[in-house]
Every structure is written in structure tokens, then in C-alpha cells.
């Protein structure tokens, strides 16, 4: 009896060891590991799947959150990290990292008001800031009525809904309010989670979407795809040029296209409140963070090849999932930055 058990254990052990060896051998050449932001996860996993079908290279992307992604790449436990908020140039320098944008998306404002259809309600930056500061508390406030002369707005309490978890979406949204409202800047500021003056917190985009859909008179912010999937009532927002724009792939692209990336060292550039008549004001890029010094040139090149493929061949897939691919001039800037920054033993990895 005992002999049989021992035999079984031995066989199991041998199988486990050989399995482990196989895994390691495989990992050295053909597997890339990444971790970070949840916002781009749907498109990254789609790209990873397609790239694997074409080339056989396996990409594991763990959507553990931007903070986790940054921590993991600093600790060198992954090949690349992903973050919705760019690292500052000083941060990048201190850790020997470099970053570049890979995909663009938009944050939209959603409301739950009976009789109001998607795209009907207009909001100005001041209105949005004052609602989220808790200074405007009723939907029939004269300030809202003034911007929306044709709409019937009831005497209803405004319930503000925000993200409860730390998130890149909140970072973008508060970054926008920070830029357009001096009061927001002094009272609240920009971060992945902030001390909200008013409102309820939902967990994740689905949590915010759920709260907004259930509370009559609610207003919240979600990623564009969530608003579309849940058929939510999104609002128009006045941009820097003074025009009211509707959230769409076109208006996100306009914001990205009008941005001045050339003069942004380390691609530290936030796409909120961009100039241009068609620009959606709360647009943001999601970033990839890698080490400048790659220990294995071949492995580093494999990784950059994947990103290059995403930038050059992934546009259709991105649009299907309501993301915006990077404009062409930006793709070239990104690849040029690889040439200049990413090295292995002093030699450039990408050429």
C-alpha cells in the first residue's frame, strides 16, 4: 500500500519537474508578461490573442490596475507595465524606465433623467465642476437651464456617482476638472482616487453604470464603451473651443490629433481639455512602461515587435471595441523613441 503511494508521489514529482522545465524553456523565447491598467484590458487581450495566432508568441496580460502595473515593472517581475496615467519624467529617470502611449479612449458623462435622451443634455465645464463639487444640487438649477433652453428639467436632487476604487478613469476625469476649475484644483485635485466632496462610489465602471441606471437623477462618469453597451444617456460637453461635442471615436481622435506630442518629453501628455473644434475634452491615452535597459536583446525586440504590430495592424480591432488607435504621426514618434531609448548592453534593441 505505502509503496504504491510512494510510487505515485514520485511519478507526480517527476511530471511536475519536467512540466516546470518545459514551461521555463518556453518562457525564455516565446512568452511576454505584462501587467497593469484595467481600462485597456479588452483590447490588449484581443491583440494578444490575434498576435499569438499569427506569430505563436504568447502574451500574458494581467489587468491588476495601473498602480500594480507600475509596481510590478519597477520590481522587474514583468516585461512591461501598463498605466492609464503617465509617469512623470523624473519618475521615469529615477527607475530607468521609458513609456509610450498604445491606445486612446474617452471618458463620458452619463445621467439618469426621464424624458432626456442620449446627447440631449448639454454641460459646460463650469456646470460639471459645480455639480461634482456639490454646489449645484438640483436638476432645475437656473445655471443648467440657461445652457439647455429647450429641455424640461424637473425639480429633482442630483445624485453624484463616482468610482469607489482607484482607477485611471478617475485620474482622467479629475485631471480634466482640475484643468477647467480653479476651485476643483484647490479643493480636490487630481488622482486615481480623491476625497470627493459629494456623492456615492461604485466599484468599477460597471458599479458606476449600475448606480446611475438605478438612481433617478444620478450623474456619473464611465468609459465610453460602458455607456454604449448599457445604452446609457450620455451628455454633450463643451470643449476648449467653446463647442458642444458628442462623445465618439471621431471626437476622441480629434483630441489626440490636435495634441502636441512632439514637445512632450517622455510622452508625458494628458489629452484632457485639448484644443480643436471637434475635440472631446476628456480623452486619454493608456501607456506602456518598459525598462530602458533590456537584459536580453532578443526578448526586448520580440516585445517591441508586438507593440509595433498593435500600432500598425491593430486599428480595426480597436475601433470595434470603441477604442481609438494612435494617429500615424504619433506611431512614428513612438517607434523613434524606442530607437533612441531602449538598449541592451549599449546597443539599440529596435532598428
Amino acid at each position, binding site marked *: 500500500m505505502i509503496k504504491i503511494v510512494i510510487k505515485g508521489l514520485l511519478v507526480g514529482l517527476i511530471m511536475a519537474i519536467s512540466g516546470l522545465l518545459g514551461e521555463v524553456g518556453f518562457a525564455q523565447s516565446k512568452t511576454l508578461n505584462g501587467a497593469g491598467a484595467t481600462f485597456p484590458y479588452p483590447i490588449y487581450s484581443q491583440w494578444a490573442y490575434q498576435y499569438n495566432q499569427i506569430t505563436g508568441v504568447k502574451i500574458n496580460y494581467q489587468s*491588476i*490596475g*495601473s*498602480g*500594480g502595473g*507600475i*509596481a510590478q515593472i519597477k520590481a522587474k517581475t514583468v516585461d512591461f507595465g501598463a498605466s492609464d496615467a503617465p509617469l512623470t519624467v523624473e519618475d521615469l529617470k529615477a527607475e530607468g524606465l521609458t513609456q509610450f502611449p498604445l491606445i486612446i479612449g474617452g471618458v463620458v458623462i452619463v445621467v439618469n433623467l426621464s424624458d432626456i435622451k442620449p446627447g440631449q443634455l448639454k454641460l459646460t465645464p463650469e456646470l460639471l465642476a459645480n455639480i461634482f463639487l456639490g454646489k449645484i444640487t438640483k436638476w432645475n438649477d437656473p445655471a443648467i437651464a440657461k445652457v439647455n433652453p429647450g429641455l424640461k428639467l424637473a425639480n429633482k*436632487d442630483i*445624485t453624484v456617482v463616482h468610482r*469607489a*476604487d*482607484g*482607477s485611471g478613469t478617475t485620474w482622467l476625469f479629475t485631471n480634466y476638472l482640475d484643468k477647467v476649475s480653479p476651485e476643483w484644483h484647490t479643493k*480636490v*485635485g*487630481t*488622482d*486615481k*482616487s*480623491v*476625497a*470627493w466632496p459629494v*456623492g*456615492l*462610489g*461604485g*466599484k468599477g465602471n460597471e*458599479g458606476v453604470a*449600475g*448606480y446611475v441606471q*438605478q*438612481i433617478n437623477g444620478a450623474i456619473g462618469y464611465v468609459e465610453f464603451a460602458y455607456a454604449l453597451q448599457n445604452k446609457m444617456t450620455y451628455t454633450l460637453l463643451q470643449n476648449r473651443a467653446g463647442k458642444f461635442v458628442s462623445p465618439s471615436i471621431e471626437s476622441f481622435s480629434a483630441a489626440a490629433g490636435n495634441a502636441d506630442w512632439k514637445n512632450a518629453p517622455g510622452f508625458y501628455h494628458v489629452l484632457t481639455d485639448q484644443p480643436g473644434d471637434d475635440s472631446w475634452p476628456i480623452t486619454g491615452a493608456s501607456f506602456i512602461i518598459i525598462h530602458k535597459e533590456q537584459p536580453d536583446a532578443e526578448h526586448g525586440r520580440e516585445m517591441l515587435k508586438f507593440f509595433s504590430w498593435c500600432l500598425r495592424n491593430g486599428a480595426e480591432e480597436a475601433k470595434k471595441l470603441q477604442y481609438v488607435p494612435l494617429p500615424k504621426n504619433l506611431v512614428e514618434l513612438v517607434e523613434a523613441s524606442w530607437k533612441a531609448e531602449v538598449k541592451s548592453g549599449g546597443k539599440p534593441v529596435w532598428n
Partner: protein
Amino acid sequence: MLSLRNSRWQRRTDFIFRILTVLCASVIAFVLVLIIYELFVNSGPSFKKFGLRFLVSSIWNPVTGEFGALSSIFGTIVSTIIAMALAVPLAIVTALFLTELVSPAISKLVGIGIELLAAVPSIIYGMWGLFVFAPFMSNHIQPALARWFGFLPLFSGPPMGIGMLTAGIILALMVVPFICAVTRDVFLMVPSVIKESAFGMGATTWEVTSKVTIRYGLQGIIGACFLGLGRAIGETMAVTFVIGNDHNISASLFSAGNSIASTLANEFSEASDPLYLSSLVELGLTLFLITIVIQSLAWVWLRRMKRKMRVTL
């Protein structure tokens, strides 16, 4: 010869078994010590910066790096009190019904149902709470409470369907099966001889229940309640879905709040700043200490209770 070998073999297995049990038991103790150690070490930076102010400040501002646990502690305690106030009577009455008043066949059927409820994952309660129960609260229960008891600050404010009260009720639903299942087993263990003697002396069902069954099973009932309390106080996902997640202390049960566990679930993954992370760990340590305090109070109370009632259980 054979018996000699046997006894030696038996002694050896006894020895091995003993080592095995000691090892397993010490693993548990070791893990506990490690957890406490890690919590203390990692909450160091936060403790150094805020000291005891951490426990009495309700400011939670990741932007300026000001952290205080008061609103989370408040939410944890209030939601747990609501849950226990609703769950304990309901569970005990149900357990009595199952053991004293219905036929064994029905009792068994309902009993299986309760055990199934106890096995439902908390995320299911959370989703159900958010999508089904919260609208029901907002449309029916909260307006009714506001109409009748609106003069109390407890039931003031807009009926959003999400908030402290909803979280408390969901928690109650989650812990009822636990308390009920254990209480039922406790009642079943009351020797029927004792109950039968009481009945024989002419006691009514109510008298037997209150003076014999409940009294006999008191320690077990309290144990069951603390099992439920343990689940309610640390429950994370279901609460996170319905509590509203606002760092806010309000007298109204309709308003949004947060609990220690929900704050951890929400904010841990994106906390990259060391002080922020350390404050979250200290929040976890606080929950740990609250649990220890409650357990010790329960222990002391139980001992006094036993002495007072002169029952040897």
C-alpha cells in the same frame, strides 16, 4: 510474535500521528503570528505619521496624503449592528420552528435550503443586492420608512436604495443561514428527557422553549451569533456593492457610507503611494483588533452569564 509487532507498529503510528497533529496545529499558529507581524510592520509608516489620530480622524484624502479610519470603523460597526439586530431574532425563531414545531420531514427540507443559502458566494448577494434589492428598497421600503419615521434623523435623506441600511439588510440575509444552522443543531442536542420532563410537569410549548431549550443551548446560540458576527464584520464584496462607498459619517441610515473591508477592496489595487498603502494596511490591522476585542468581550460576558444562570454547560 504477531501481537508484539502489531503493538510496536501501533506505537510508531501513534508517534507519527502525534507529530503530524503538532505540525498542523503549529502551522496555524505560525500563520497567525506572521499575519500580525506583517500587519504591524507594514502599517509602520502610517502609524508614525498619524499616530492615534488615524483612529479618530474621518479625513480620507489620497491626493494630500491625509488618512483617517473613523468613517470606515463607523460604517463597519453600524452595518454589523443592523445586520445582527435583524439576523439574530430571525435565525433563532427559524431554528425553534425547525426543531420544535414542524414535522421532521419538512424540517429536513427547510434545513437543506438553509445550508444551501449558507453556501451562496457573497458576490451573488452583492449583485442581487445592487440590481434587485436596492431598487426595491428605493421604491418601497425607504419611502415607507421615511413616511412613518421620517422625523428621526435615522430615516432622513433621499431614498437612493443604496447605503448603510441596505448593506445591513443584505448582511443580515447572509448571516441568517449561519446562525440558524448552528442554532438548530444546538437545539437538537438538548436531551429530550429534559424537555419531556418539563412537558410532563404541565409546561406549555412556550415555557419549555424559553425556560429549557433556549437556556440549555445558550452557549451554543451565542457561539452561533459570533460566527455570524465574524462573517458580517469582515464581509467585503456584498457590502462593497451596496454600501455606496463614501468616506462619510452620517446619522441617516439612508446615506452612503463605507466599511473597512469595502475600503480595502476598493482602494488596494491602485494604491501606489507608500503612505497610502500603509494606511490601508493599518485599516486592516484595525479590523483585526476590533475582531479580537469583540471576541474577548464575548468570552468575558459568556463566563459571567454562566455564573449568573448557574448552568454548567
